[in-house]
Protein backbone atom coordinates (compact mmCIF):
# COMPACT_ATOMS: atom_id res chain seq x y z
CA UNK A 1 0.00 0.00 0.00
CA UNK A 2 1.34 3.43 -0.93
CA UNK A 3 1.46 5.56 2.17
CA UNK A 4 0.04 9.08 1.97
CA UNK A 5 2.24 11.78 3.44
CA UNK A 6 3.26 15.33 2.64
CA UNK A 7 6.35 13.83 0.98
CA UNK A 8 4.39 11.40 -1.22
CA UNK A 9 2.01 14.18 -2.33
CA UNK A 10 4.95 16.44 -3.17
CA UNK A 11 6.73 13.68 -5.06
CA UNK A 12 3.64 12.94 -7.15
CA UNK A 13 3.02 16.64 -7.76
CA UNK A 14 6.45 16.92 -9.38
CA UNK A 15 6.08 13.53 -11.09
CA UNK A 16 2.93 14.50 -12.97
CA UNK A 17 0.70 12.38 -10.68
CA UNK A 18 1.66 9.32 -12.74
CA UNK A 19 2.86 7.14 -9.86
CA UNK A 20 -0.41 6.51 -8.03
CA UNK A 21 -1.59 2.94 -7.76
CA UNK A 22 -5.15 1.63 -7.34
CA UNK A 23 -6.22 2.01 -3.72
CA UNK A 24 -7.38 -1.58 -3.37
CA UNK A 25 -6.87 -4.84 -5.23
CA UNK A 26 -9.52 -5.97 -7.69
CA UNK A 27 -10.11 -9.43 -6.26
CA UNK A 28 -11.75 -12.48 -7.80
CA UNK A 29 -13.56 -14.83 -5.44
CA UNK A 30 -11.56 -17.70 -3.96
CA UNK A 31 -13.19 -21.08 -3.31
CA UNK A 32 -13.17 -20.62 0.46
CA UNK A 33 -12.76 -17.90 3.10
CA UNK A 34 -12.67 -17.93 6.90
CA UNK A 35 -15.39 -15.27 6.92
CA UNK A 36 -17.39 -13.28 4.38
CA UNK A 37 -18.99 -9.88 4.87
CA UNK A 38 -22.05 -9.27 2.69
CA UNK A 39 -22.32 -5.59 1.78
CA UNK A 40 -19.50 -3.27 0.78
CA UNK A 41 -20.61 -0.10 2.49
CA UNK A 42 -18.78 1.64 5.31
CA UNK A 43 -20.12 -0.77 7.94
CA UNK A 44 -19.14 -3.90 5.98
CA UNK A 45 -15.73 -2.67 4.83
CA UNK A 46 -15.02 -1.39 8.33
CA UNK A 47 -15.93 -4.75 9.85
CA UNK A 48 -13.56 -6.47 7.40
CA UNK A 49 -10.80 -4.03 8.29
CA UNK A 50 -11.20 -4.59 12.05
CA UNK A 51 -11.43 -8.37 11.58
CA UNK A 52 -8.07 -8.25 9.82
CA UNK A 53 -6.40 -5.56 11.92
CA UNK A 54 -7.58 -6.51 15.41
CA UNK A 55 -8.61 -10.15 15.22
CA UNK A 56 -6.04 -11.54 12.81
CA UNK A 57 -8.60 -12.85 10.33
CA UNK A 58 -7.08 -12.03 6.95
CA UNK A 59 -8.49 -14.82 4.78
CA UNK A 60 -11.77 -12.96 4.45
CA UNK A 61 -13.79 -11.24 1.73
CA UNK A 62 -16.32 -8.46 1.32
CA UNK A 63 -18.88 -9.15 -1.40
CA UNK A 64 -20.82 -6.21 -2.81
CA UNK A 65 -23.56 -6.44 -5.45
CA UNK A 66 -22.73 -3.03 -6.96
CA UNK A 67 -19.67 -0.90 -6.31
CA UNK A 68 -18.35 -0.21 -2.82
CA UNK A 69 -19.85 2.80 -1.08
CA UNK A 70 -22.60 3.01 -3.70
CA UNK A 71 -25.45 2.37 -1.29
CA UNK A 72 -26.38 4.37 1.76
CA UNK A 73 -22.73 5.15 2.53
CA UNK A 74 -22.67 7.33 -0.58
CA UNK A 75 -26.21 8.64 -0.19
CA UNK A 76 -26.45 10.07 3.31
CA UNK A 77 -25.97 13.56 4.74
CA UNK A 78 -22.79 12.57 6.66
CA UNK A 79 -23.91 13.83 10.08
CA UNK A 80 -21.95 12.49 13.06
CA UNK A 81 -23.18 12.82 16.64
CA UNK A 82 -23.78 10.70 19.74
CA UNK A 83 -26.40 12.62 21.75
CA UNK A 84 -28.85 9.72 22.07
CA UNK A 85 -31.04 9.37 25.14
CA UNK A 86 -30.49 5.83 26.40
CA UNK A 87 -27.20 4.68 27.90
CA UNK A 88 -26.93 1.73 25.50
CA UNK A 89 -27.26 4.02 22.48
CA UNK A 90 -25.05 6.77 23.86
CA UNK A 91 -22.29 4.21 24.53
CA UNK A 92 -22.54 2.74 21.03
CA UNK A 93 -22.62 6.06 19.20
CA UNK A 94 -19.95 7.63 21.39
CA UNK A 95 -17.70 4.64 20.78
CA UNK A 96 -18.08 5.58 17.15
CA UNK A 97 -17.39 9.30 17.64
CA UNK A 98 -14.18 8.42 19.49
CA UNK A 99 -13.07 6.23 16.57
CA UNK A 100 -13.97 9.00 14.10
CA UNK A 101 -11.60 11.35 15.89
CA UNK A 102 -8.51 9.32 14.95
CA UNK A 103 -9.79 7.48 11.88
CA UNK A 104 -7.81 9.47 9.30
CA UNK A 105 -4.56 8.74 11.14
CA UNK A 106 -5.40 5.07 11.76
CA UNK A 107 -6.29 4.42 8.11
CA UNK A 108 -3.68 6.83 6.69
CA UNK A 109 -6.56 8.14 4.58
CA UNK A 110 -8.19 11.55 5.00
CA UNK A 111 -11.83 10.92 5.85
CA UNK A 112 -12.21 14.67 6.40
CA UNK A 113 -13.79 14.28 9.83
CA UNK A 114 -14.87 17.78 10.79
CA UNK A 115 -16.20 18.17 14.36
CA UNK A 116 -17.90 21.47 13.59
CA UNK A 117 -20.76 20.97 16.04
CA UNK A 118 -24.27 19.58 15.61
CA UNK A 119 -27.05 21.86 16.77
CA UNK A 120 -30.60 20.53 17.21
CA UNK A 121 -33.30 23.21 17.27
CA UNK A 122 -36.23 23.29 19.67
CA UNK A 123 -39.45 24.87 18.42
CA UNK A 124 -41.96 24.15 21.15
CA UNK A 125 -42.19 23.45 24.87
CA UNK A 126 -42.06 19.70 24.29
CA UNK A 127 -38.83 20.02 22.28
CA UNK A 128 -37.27 22.14 25.03
CA UNK A 129 -38.14 19.58 27.69
CA UNK A 130 -37.02 16.59 25.61
CA UNK A 131 -33.72 18.18 24.61
CA UNK A 132 -32.92 19.22 28.16
CA UNK A 133 -33.64 15.67 29.26
CA UNK A 134 -31.25 14.43 26.58
CA UNK A 135 -28.59 16.92 27.67
CA UNK A 136 -28.76 15.79 31.30
CA UNK A 137 -28.79 12.09 30.34
CA UNK A 138 -25.84 12.58 27.99
CA UNK A 139 -23.78 14.51 30.50
CA UNK A 140 -24.44 11.90 33.15
CA UNK A 141 -22.98 9.25 30.84
CA UNK A 142 -20.01 11.36 29.77
CA UNK A 143 -21.29 12.51 26.38
CA UNK A 144 -21.00 16.23 25.67
CA UNK A 145 -24.23 18.12 25.00
CA UNK A 146 -25.22 21.63 26.06
CA UNK A 147 -28.20 23.94 26.01
CA UNK A 148 -28.14 27.18 24.00
CA UNK A 149 -30.58 30.08 24.15
CA UNK A 150 -31.86 31.35 20.79
CA UNK A 151 -29.29 34.17 20.92
CA UNK A 152 -26.46 31.72 21.62
CA UNK A 153 -27.71 29.52 18.78
CA UNK A 154 -27.65 32.51 16.45
CA UNK A 155 -24.11 33.34 17.56
CA UNK A 156 -23.03 29.76 16.81
CA UNK A 157 -24.82 29.70 13.45
CA UNK A 158 -25.24 33.26 12.08
CA UNK A 159 -27.54 32.41 9.12
CA UNK A 160 -30.19 31.14 11.56
CA UNK A 161 -33.43 33.12 11.81
CA UNK A 162 -34.43 33.38 15.48
CA UNK A 163 -37.13 35.99 14.87
CA UNK A 164 -40.75 35.37 15.74
CA UNK A 165 -41.82 35.92 12.13
CA UNK A 166 -41.87 32.20 11.31
CA UNK A 167 -44.47 29.54 12.00
CA UNK A 168 -42.37 27.73 14.63
CA UNK A 169 -39.83 30.17 16.12
CA UNK A 170 -36.58 28.83 17.60
CA UNK A 171 -36.90 28.47 21.38
CA UNK A 172 -33.38 27.19 21.97
CA UNK A 173 -31.05 24.45 20.85
CA UNK A 174 -29.02 21.47 22.03
CA UNK A 175 -25.43 21.58 20.83
CA UNK A 176 -22.97 18.70 20.66
CA UNK A 177 -19.63 20.32 19.84
CA UNK A 178 -17.84 17.00 19.15
CA UNK A 179 -20.39 16.18 16.46
CA UNK A 180 -19.90 17.14 12.84
CA UNK A 181 -19.45 15.60 9.42
CA UNK A 182 -17.04 13.43 7.43
CA UNK A 183 -16.48 12.67 3.76
CA UNK A 184 -18.73 9.67 3.07
CA UNK A 185 -16.89 8.21 0.04
CA UNK A 186 -13.55 8.54 1.78
CA UNK A 187 -14.82 6.38 4.63
CA UNK A 188 -15.64 3.51 2.27
CA UNK A 189 -12.45 3.98 0.26
CA UNK A 190 -10.24 4.38 3.32
CA UNK A 191 -11.53 1.17 4.93
CA UNK A 192 -11.34 -0.68 1.60
CA UNK A 193 -7.75 0.43 1.05
CA UNK A 194 -6.63 -0.48 4.55
CA UNK A 195 -8.48 -3.82 4.52
CA UNK A 196 -7.15 -4.74 1.09
CA UNK A 197 -3.61 -4.02 2.24
CA UNK A 198 -4.11 -6.52 5.08
CA UNK A 199 -5.18 -9.21 2.62
CA UNK A 200 -8.96 -8.80 2.55
CA UNK A 201 -10.53 -9.54 -0.85
CA UNK A 202 -12.99 -6.84 -1.93
CA UNK A 203 -15.25 -8.36 -4.56
CA UNK A 204 -17.51 -5.90 -6.36
CA UNK A 205 -20.37 -6.70 -8.77
CA UNK A 206 -21.01 -9.90 -6.83
CA UNK A 207 -24.58 -10.29 -5.60
CA UNK A 208 -25.43 -12.92 -3.01
CA UNK A 209 -28.23 -15.19 -4.25
CA UNK A 210 -28.29 -17.82 -1.53
CA UNK A 211 -26.86 -18.85 1.83
CA UNK A 212 -25.78 -22.50 2.06
CA UNK A 213 -26.27 -24.52 5.25
CA UNK A 214 -24.81 -27.81 6.38
CA UNK A 215 -26.69 -30.78 7.82
CA UNK A 216 -26.67 -29.20 11.30
CA UNK A 217 -28.11 -25.96 9.91
CA UNK A 218 -24.90 -23.95 10.29
CA UNK A 219 -23.62 -21.65 7.56
CA UNK A 220 -21.57 -23.52 4.94
CA UNK A 221 -21.17 -20.93 2.21
CA UNK A 222 -22.86 -18.45 -0.08
CA UNK A 223 -24.12 -18.59 -3.65
CA UNK A 224 -23.32 -15.49 -5.65
CA UNK A 225 -23.61 -14.24 -9.20
CA UNK A 226 -19.89 -15.04 -9.44
CA UNK A 227 -20.15 -18.58 -8.15
CA UNK A 228 -20.36 -20.45 -4.87
CA UNK A 229 -17.96 -19.56 -2.06
CA UNK A 230 -17.44 -21.79 0.99
CA UNK A 231 -17.24 -20.21 4.45
CA UNK A 232 -18.30 -20.95 8.03
CA UNK A 233 -19.02 -17.33 8.97
CA UNK A 234 -21.16 -14.78 7.15
CA UNK A 235 -21.67 -11.24 8.45
CA UNK A 236 -24.57 -9.48 6.77
CA UNK A 237 -24.24 -5.72 6.59
CA UNK A 238 -26.69 -5.04 3.77
CA UNK A 239 -28.67 -2.02 5.08
CA UNK A 240 -32.02 -1.74 3.25
CA UNK A 241 -31.64 -5.22 1.78
CA UNK A 242 -30.93 -6.98 5.09
CA UNK A 243 -34.40 -8.59 5.06
CA UNK A 244 -33.74 -9.97 1.59
CA UNK A 245 -30.33 -11.45 2.43
CA UNK A 246 -31.35 -12.83 5.83
CA UNK A 247 -34.46 -14.30 4.20
CA UNK A 248 -32.13 -16.57 2.19
CA UNK A 249 -31.26 -18.31 5.46
CA UNK A 250 -34.84 -18.32 6.67
CA UNK A 251 -34.14 -15.67 9.30
CA UNK A 252 -36.90 -13.08 9.68
CA UNK A 253 -36.13 -9.76 11.31
CA UNK A 254 -38.37 -6.97 12.57
CA UNK A 255 -37.30 -4.63 9.77
CA UNK A 256 -39.06 -2.50 7.21
CA UNK A 257 -37.27 -0.76 4.35
CA UNK A 258 -38.16 2.81 3.44
CA UNK A 259 -36.86 5.35 0.91
CA UNK A 260 -34.99 8.25 2.53
CA UNK A 261 -34.11 11.26 0.42
CA UNK A 262 -31.41 13.91 0.42
CA UNK A 263 -30.47 16.76 -1.88
CA UNK A 264 -27.69 19.25 -2.47
CA UNK A 265 -27.62 22.84 -3.70
CA UNK A 266 -25.31 24.50 -6.14
CA UNK A 267 -21.89 25.07 -4.52
CA UNK A 268 -21.30 28.45 -2.88
CA UNK A 269 -18.58 30.03 -0.73
CA UNK A 270 -18.40 28.96 2.93
CA UNK A 271 -21.63 30.28 4.43
CA UNK A 272 -22.69 27.71 6.98
CA UNK A 273 -20.40 26.85 9.89
CA UNK A 274 -22.04 23.84 11.54
CA UNK A 275 -24.70 21.15 11.22
CA UNK A 276 -28.25 22.16 12.09
CA UNK A 277 -31.07 19.70 12.63
CA UNK A 278 -34.66 20.53 13.30
CA UNK A 279 -36.70 17.47 14.07
CA UNK A 280 -40.02 19.19 14.67
CA UNK A 281 -40.26 20.98 11.33
CA UNK A 282 -37.86 18.56 9.69
CA UNK A 283 -34.76 20.16 8.27
CA UNK A 284 -31.21 18.86 8.24
CA UNK A 285 -28.53 21.06 6.75
CA UNK A 286 -24.78 21.46 6.56
CA UNK A 287 -22.31 22.68 3.97
CA UNK A 288 -19.82 20.34 2.33
CA UNK A 289 -16.22 21.35 1.76
CA UNK A 290 -17.12 21.49 -1.92
CA UNK A 291 -19.58 24.28 -1.02
CA UNK A 292 -22.87 22.50 -1.59
CA UNK A 293 -25.57 22.79 1.03
CA UNK A 294 -26.32 19.18 1.99
CA UNK A 295 -29.95 18.78 2.99
CA UNK A 296 -31.66 15.72 4.41
CA UNK A 297 -35.36 15.14 3.86
CA UNK A 298 -37.52 12.63 5.68
CA UNK A 299 -38.35 9.07 4.77
CA UNK A 300 -41.47 8.15 2.86
CA UNK A 301 -44.37 6.63 4.75
CA UNK A 302 -44.52 3.40 2.73
CA UNK A 303 -41.94 0.62 2.54
CA UNK A 304 -40.18 0.41 -0.80
CA UNK A 305 -36.92 -0.61 -2.50
CA UNK A 306 -37.06 2.01 -5.28
CA UNK A 307 -34.32 4.43 -4.08
CA UNK A 308 -36.67 7.27 -5.10
CA UNK A 309 -39.37 8.64 -2.84
CA UNK A 310 -41.97 11.33 -3.37
CA UNK A 311 -41.09 14.90 -4.35
CA UNK A 312 -43.37 16.55 -1.80
CA UNK A 313 -41.13 15.14 0.95
CA UNK A 314 -38.26 17.29 -0.36
CA UNK A 315 -40.54 20.30 -0.83
CA UNK A 316 -41.61 20.03 2.81
CA UNK A 317 -38.00 20.08 4.02
CA UNK A 318 -37.08 22.99 1.75
CA UNK A 319 -40.00 25.01 3.11
CA UNK A 320 -38.57 24.58 6.61
CA UNK A 321 -35.04 25.47 5.42
CA UNK A 322 -36.33 28.66 3.78
CA UNK A 323 -38.03 29.76 6.99
CA UNK A 324 -35.04 29.01 9.22
CA UNK A 325 -32.41 30.36 6.81
CA UNK A 326 -34.00 33.12 4.70
CA UNK A 327 -30.63 33.79 3.02
CA UNK A 328 -30.94 30.44 1.22
CA UNK A 329 -34.32 31.16 -0.37
CA UNK A 330 -32.88 31.83 -3.81
CA UNK A 331 -30.41 28.93 -3.80
CA UNK A 332 -30.93 26.40 -6.57
CA UNK A 333 -30.89 22.69 -5.84
CA UNK A 334 -28.58 20.59 -8.01
CA UNK A 335 -29.37 16.97 -7.31
CA UNK A 336 -31.68 14.82 -5.23
CA UNK A 337 -31.63 11.09 -4.63
CA UNK A 338 -32.91 8.37 -2.36
CA UNK A 339 -31.50 5.46 -0.42
CA UNK A 340 -33.24 2.52 1.22
CA UNK A 341 -33.04 2.44 5.00
CA UNK A 342 -33.98 -0.53 7.17
CA UNK A 343 -35.96 0.56 10.20
CA UNK A 344 -36.58 -1.40 13.41
CA UNK A 345 -39.63 -0.88 15.64
CA UNK A 346 -37.56 0.89 18.33
CA UNK A 347 -35.29 2.75 15.84
CA UNK A 348 -32.18 1.15 17.35
CA UNK A 349 -29.94 -1.15 15.31
CA UNK A 350 -29.47 -4.90 15.55
CA UNK A 351 -25.81 -6.00 15.82
CA UNK A 352 -26.00 -9.61 16.82
CA UNK A 353 -25.78 -13.32 16.27
CA UNK A 354 -28.78 -14.87 14.55
CA UNK A 355 -30.52 -18.19 15.27
CA UNK A 356 -28.39 -19.67 12.45
CA UNK A 357 -24.91 -20.73 13.57
CA UNK A 358 -22.23 -18.74 11.77
CA UNK A 359 -24.62 -16.05 10.56
CA UNK A 360 -24.27 -12.56 12.02
CA UNK A 361 -26.17 -9.39 11.26
CA UNK A 362 -25.55 -5.67 11.50
CA UNK A 363 -28.73 -3.90 10.39
CA UNK A 364 -31.63 -1.72 11.41
CA UNK A 365 -29.71 1.54 11.36
CA UNK A 366 -32.69 3.29 9.85
CA UNK A 367 -32.04 6.91 8.99
CA UNK A 368 -28.86 7.30 11.04
CA UNK A 369 -26.25 4.68 10.22
CA UNK A 370 -23.42 6.79 8.82
CA UNK A 371 -22.44 8.34 12.16
CA UNK A 372 -22.05 4.87 13.61
CA UNK A 373 -19.84 3.45 10.84
CA UNK A 374 -16.54 2.96 12.74
CA UNK A 375 -18.10 1.96 16.07
CA UNK A 376 -20.60 -0.41 14.53
CA UNK A 377 -17.96 -2.00 12.28
CA UNK A 378 -15.65 -2.38 15.28
CA UNK A 379 -18.12 -4.20 17.52
CA UNK A 380 -19.53 -6.23 14.61
CA UNK A 381 -16.03 -7.51 13.84
CA UNK A 382 -15.66 -8.48 17.51
CA UNK A 383 -19.02 -10.32 17.38
CA UNK A 384 -17.98 -12.29 14.28
CA UNK A 385 -14.46 -13.08 15.51
CA UNK A 386 -15.47 -14.25 19.00
CA UNK A 387 -18.96 -15.57 18.22
CA UNK A 388 -19.97 -13.36 21.15
CA UNK A 389 -21.06 -9.71 21.19
CA UNK A 390 -18.79 -6.94 22.41
CA UNK A 391 -20.15 -5.46 25.68
CA UNK A 392 -21.18 -2.34 23.75
CA UNK A 393 -23.42 -4.17 21.29
CA UNK A 394 -24.63 -6.86 23.69
CA UNK A 395 -28.00 -5.09 24.25
CA UNK A 396 -28.64 -4.75 20.49
CA UNK A 397 -29.97 -8.28 19.96
CA UNK A 398 -32.83 -9.61 17.86
CA UNK A 399 -34.32 -11.16 21.01
CA UNK A 400 -34.89 -7.78 22.64
CA UNK A 401 -38.17 -7.51 20.74
CA UNK A 402 -39.37 -10.84 22.12
CA UNK A 403 -38.17 -9.99 25.64
CA UNK A 404 -39.49 -6.44 25.67
CA UNK A 405 -36.06 -4.93 26.34
CA UNK A 406 -36.37 -2.28 23.65
CA UNK A 407 -33.87 0.54 23.30
CA UNK A 408 -36.63 2.87 22.41
CA UNK A 409 -35.02 5.82 20.67
CA UNK A 410 -38.22 6.01 18.61
CA UNK A 411 -40.21 7.11 21.65
CA UNK A 412 -37.28 9.16 22.96
CA UNK A 413 -37.57 11.24 19.77
CA UNK A 414 -33.87 11.97 19.64
CA UNK A 415 -34.21 11.91 15.88
CA UNK A 416 -36.94 12.45 13.37
CA UNK A 417 -38.11 9.38 11.51
Amino acid sequence: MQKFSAWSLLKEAFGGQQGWQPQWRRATPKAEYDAIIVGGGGHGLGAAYYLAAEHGLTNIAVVEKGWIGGGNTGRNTTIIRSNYLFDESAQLYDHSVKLWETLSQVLNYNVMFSPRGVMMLAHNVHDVQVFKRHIHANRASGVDNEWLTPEQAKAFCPPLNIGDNIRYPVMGAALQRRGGTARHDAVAWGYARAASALGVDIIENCEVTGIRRDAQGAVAGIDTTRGTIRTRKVGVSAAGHSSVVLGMAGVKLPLESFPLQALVSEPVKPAFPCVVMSNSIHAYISQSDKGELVIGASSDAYNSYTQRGSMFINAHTLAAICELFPAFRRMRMLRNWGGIVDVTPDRSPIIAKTPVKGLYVNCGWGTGGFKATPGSAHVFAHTIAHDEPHPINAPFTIERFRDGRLIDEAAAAAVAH
Partner: protein
Amino acid sequence: MLLIHCPYCGQRPELEFRHGGQAHVARPADPSATSIDEWADYLYLRENPKGLHAERWRHVHGCGRFFNALRDTTTDVFVSTYRCGEPRPDGGSAR
Protein backbone atom coordinates in the same frame (compact mmCIF):
# COMPACT_ATOMS: atom_id res chain seq x y z
CA MET B 1 -46.13 11.57 -5.64
CA LEU B 2 -48.09 8.37 -5.96
CA LEU B 3 -51.58 8.28 -7.40
CA ILE B 4 -53.69 5.95 -5.32
CA HIS B 5 -57.04 4.47 -6.26
CA CYS B 6 -59.36 4.64 -3.26
CA PRO B 7 -62.02 1.91 -3.74
CA TYR B 8 -64.62 4.40 -2.54
CA CYS B 9 -63.49 7.75 -4.05
CA GLY B 10 -61.35 6.83 -7.07
CA GLN B 11 -57.91 8.11 -8.04
CA ARG B 12 -56.43 10.66 -5.64
CA PRO B 13 -52.94 12.03 -4.86
CA GLU B 14 -50.83 10.38 -2.15
CA LEU B 15 -51.08 13.49 0.07
CA GLU B 16 -54.69 12.59 0.87
CA PHE B 17 -53.70 9.21 2.28
CA ARG B 18 -51.88 7.76 5.23
CA HIS B 19 -49.98 4.49 5.01
CA GLY B 20 -51.14 1.91 7.53
CA GLY B 21 -48.46 -0.76 7.31
CA GLN B 22 -48.75 -4.40 6.30
CA ALA B 23 -52.28 -5.70 5.74
CA HIS B 24 -53.83 -8.95 6.97
CA VAL B 25 -51.91 -9.01 10.28
CA ALA B 26 -54.38 -10.80 12.52
CA ARG B 27 -54.25 -10.30 16.28
CA PRO B 28 -54.07 -13.68 18.01
CA ALA B 29 -57.56 -14.59 19.18
CA ASP B 30 -56.39 -15.62 22.63
CA PRO B 31 -53.28 -13.60 23.61
CA SER B 32 -52.81 -15.38 26.93
CA ALA B 33 -52.61 -18.72 25.11
CA THR B 34 -50.12 -17.37 22.57
CA SER B 35 -46.44 -18.18 22.93
CA ILE B 36 -44.01 -15.33 23.55
CA ASP B 37 -42.45 -15.85 20.10
CA GLU B 38 -45.79 -15.71 18.31
CA TRP B 39 -46.72 -12.58 20.23
CA ALA B 40 -43.42 -10.90 19.32
CA ASP B 41 -44.01 -11.86 15.69
CA TYR B 42 -47.48 -10.34 15.80
CA LEU B 43 -46.19 -7.11 17.36
CA TYR B 44 -42.99 -6.56 15.41
CA LEU B 45 -42.36 -8.95 12.54
CA ARG B 46 -43.33 -7.71 9.09
CA GLU B 47 -42.77 -9.26 5.67
CA ASN B 48 -40.84 -6.33 4.13
CA PRO B 49 -40.90 -8.07 0.70
CA LYS B 50 -38.95 -6.95 -2.32
CA GLY B 51 -41.90 -7.40 -4.66
CA LEU B 52 -45.65 -7.50 -4.08
CA HIS B 53 -46.73 -6.10 -0.74
CA ALA B 54 -50.26 -6.18 0.69
CA GLU B 55 -50.70 -3.05 2.77
CA ARG B 56 -53.29 -0.85 4.42
CA TRP B 57 -53.96 2.74 3.44
CA ARG B 58 -56.39 5.18 4.97
CA HIS B 59 -57.97 7.97 2.94
CA VAL B 60 -57.63 10.42 5.84
CA HIS B 61 -58.26 13.57 3.81
CA GLY B 62 -61.14 12.03 1.86
CA CYS B 63 -63.68 9.45 2.91
CA GLY B 64 -61.65 8.55 6.01
CA ARG B 65 -61.92 4.81 5.32
CA PHE B 66 -59.27 2.11 5.47
CA PHE B 67 -58.68 -0.11 2.45
CA ASN B 68 -55.97 -2.52 1.32
CA ALA B 69 -53.64 -2.29 -1.63
CA LEU B 70 -51.28 -4.58 -3.48
CA ARG B 71 -48.16 -2.63 -4.47
CA ASP B 72 -44.86 -3.70 -5.99
CA THR B 73 -42.10 -2.37 -3.71
CA THR B 74 -39.53 -2.51 -6.53
CA THR B 75 -41.49 -0.05 -8.70
CA ASP B 76 -44.15 1.45 -6.36
CA VAL B 77 -46.79 0.45 -8.98
CA PHE B 78 -50.19 -0.34 -7.45
CA VAL B 79 -51.40 -3.66 -8.84
CA SER B 80 -54.82 -3.23 -7.24
CA THR B 81 -56.67 -1.80 -4.28
CA TYR B 82 -59.46 -3.63 -2.49
CA ARG B 83 -61.78 -3.25 0.47
CA CYS B 84 -61.01 -4.42 3.97
CA GLY B 85 -62.28 -7.92 4.61
CA GLU B 86 -61.69 -9.04 1.04
CA PRO B 87 -58.93 -11.61 0.52
CA ARG B 88 -55.64 -10.67 -1.05
CA PRO B 89 -56.42 -10.62 -4.80
CA ASP B 90 -53.27 -12.42 -5.96
CA GLY B 91 -53.95 -15.30 -3.61
CA GLY B 92 -50.68 -14.68 -1.77
CA SER B 93 -50.39 -15.68 1.85
CA ALA B 94 -51.39 -13.20 4.50
CA ARG B 95 -48.12 -13.62 6.32
